[in-house]
């Protein structure tokens, strides 16, 4: 465990507003945003279709009457069809390629940018940032919101920024050694990459002056957090955001590190069953849907993130009153339903990671030979996992089998396959083949 401790601090008193006050503020702002988007052609058409009038919102629950917005809607309205302000009012444009498909653009007014800076400052302060600190930002700066969002947040706190940007790992390590920053900000996988690179150069990454780090921009696991904390000797904080909603700053962990506080005075979050679109219970996984309450340039109503997480409304020991979201554990577009149980490829990945220490190449095949769904997980044997002893191989097979069952609650047929037999793809790895679709 790192020796550094993060004190509980709250940047903005709005984070600890009494719930009743917060709900009243949300309702007020929800009415405002519905009025603001009513003249955006996309929403004008959607509201007309669903019979939504300006007085449709009387309580917060009325949000469920509003139409959803999807990534596809943003694509259809490329480049800036969803603007709710004249183009002259814009201060910034960012974009996201997403994991598939074409670029989508998002826009900010000067006020939006100030809001964004404040939201990033909130989670940075919650996770240790102080005005005297130097924060090393190893996120990409560009259309991607990660670099700029965190940069503004650090400036807002009054701390010093080292905008190292992403890439050139040798130089990152030189800066970490020579400037001794207190914090590092990047994707979790890049943090591990830096540690690994340093070790291969004979440099001990635990000897950097780093005390803590803020990680986001991709899905990661608790195992990865443990690994980052031990390899860099830091406390690792999780934060969440997506460009469509505002970028980083949608939610982030506090010193308690038990879920990410959603910035509810600026966003309404819903957690819905991705199939029925009905709300799921608290602490139950569902798709997160966000409505932006204060954004001026491009407000979005009920934006479907496709991210699967659970919400925890319990008051947090830190004093913030906002709901906390769990780690994102999957994407609803990747979700499989096996005999009525939701299964995410990321759960299989987690199981394999726990058994092998690394994630081997794998493939999930789903079929329905009779009336019941069957799932087969093919796992490539590697130099590390292969043994000439049948008992070792059987043990490996059984360990994977049990781990998958423990994590997913589903019994999968585990098949060990020869190395290099699962197809590699240049882009996003193909992890699932659903044969059920073929037989209809």
């Amino acid at each position, binding site marked *: 465990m790192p020796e550094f401790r993060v004190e509980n601090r709250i940047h903005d008193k709005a984070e600890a507003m009494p719930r009743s006050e917060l709900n009243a503020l949300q309702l007020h702002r929800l009415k405002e945003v519905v009025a603001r988007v009513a003249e955006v052609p996309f929403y004008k058409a959607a509201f007309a279709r669903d019979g939504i009038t300006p007085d449709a919102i009387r309580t917060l629950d009325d949000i469920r009457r509003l139409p959803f917005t999807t990534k596809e809607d943003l694509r259809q309205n490329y480049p800036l069809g969803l603007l709710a302000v004249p183009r002259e009012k814009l201060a910034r444009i960012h974009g996201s390629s997403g994991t598939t498909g074409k670029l989508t653009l998002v826009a900010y007014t000067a006020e939006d940018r100030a809001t964004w800076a404040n939201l990033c400052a909130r989670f940075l302060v919650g996770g240790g940032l102080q005005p005297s600190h130097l924060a090393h930002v190893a996120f990409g700066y560009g259309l991607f919101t990660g670099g700029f969002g965190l940069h503004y947040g650090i400036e807002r706190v009054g701390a010093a920024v080292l905008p190292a940007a992403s890439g050139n790992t040798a130089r990152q390590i030189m800066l970490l050694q020579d400037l001794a920053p207190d914090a590092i900000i990047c994707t979790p996988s890049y943090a591990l990459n830096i540690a690994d690179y340093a070790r291969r150069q004979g440099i001990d990454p635990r000897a950097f002056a780093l005390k803590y780090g803020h990680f986001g921009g991709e899905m990661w696991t608790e195992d990865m957090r443990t690994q980052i904390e031990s390899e860099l000797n830091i406390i690792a904080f999780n934060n969440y955001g997506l460009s469509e909603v505002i970028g980083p700053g949608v939610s982030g962990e506090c010193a308690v590190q038990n879920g990410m506080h959603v910035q509810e005075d600026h966003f309404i979050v819903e957690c819905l069953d991705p199939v029925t679109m009905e709300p799921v219970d608290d602490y139950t996984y569902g798709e997160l849907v966000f409505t932006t309450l204060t954004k001026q340039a491009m407000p979005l109503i009920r934006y479907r993130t496709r991210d699967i997480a659970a919400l925890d409304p319990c008051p947090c020991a830190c004093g913030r009153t906002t709901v906390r979201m769990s780690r994102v554990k999957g994407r609803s577009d990747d979700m499989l339903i096996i005999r009525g149980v939701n299964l995410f490829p990321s759960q299989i990945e987690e199981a394999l990671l726990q058994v092998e220490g690394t994630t081997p190449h794998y493939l999930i095949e789903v079929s329905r030979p009779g009336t019941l769904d069957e799932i087969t997980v093919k796992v490539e*044997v*590697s*130099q590390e996992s*292969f*043994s*000439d*002893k*049948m*008992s070792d*191989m*059987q043990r490996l097979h059984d360990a994977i089998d049990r781990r998958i069952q423990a994590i997913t609650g589903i019994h999968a047929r585990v*098949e*060990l*396959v*020869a*190395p*290099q*037999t699962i197809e590699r793809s240049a882009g996003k790895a193909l992890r699932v083949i659903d044969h059920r679709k073929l037989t209809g």
Partner: protein
Amino acid sequence: MKIHQLSMFLENKPGRLSEPCKALADAGINILTLSLADTQQFGILRLIVRDWEQAKQVLEKAGSVVNVTEVVATEVEDRPGGLASILEIIDAAGINIEYMYAFTFRSEDRAVLVFRFDDPDAAVKVLQAKSINVIGPVELYGRAKA
């Protein structure tokens, strides 16, 4: 005194065994002996060849994951009770056999037994103390050539 054994993972599907054998054949490498352990799903092929380092490279180039393990080769008379007498010695010493296989050379009346032990050095000591002929690589490959 120990012999290098190559082992590799094979899926239990038609043609999977011929792939590594073909790769070795193309490289002009002769297989001294082999053993195959299999389940419904997969198998483990174990090979003894003279040029094991070259063979490992050939097999890896052909896409296999190859492990090298040290095994112990002994010989017994090719007659009823030959194997049993050696097993008695091993059992008495409390040594566990992971697996074993046997083969004979042409026109000889003796069989070669290949044993995989967790601790091959300890096993060699026990066998030699009981005057069992443990065959080293030089002798083994030399006899294969004759």
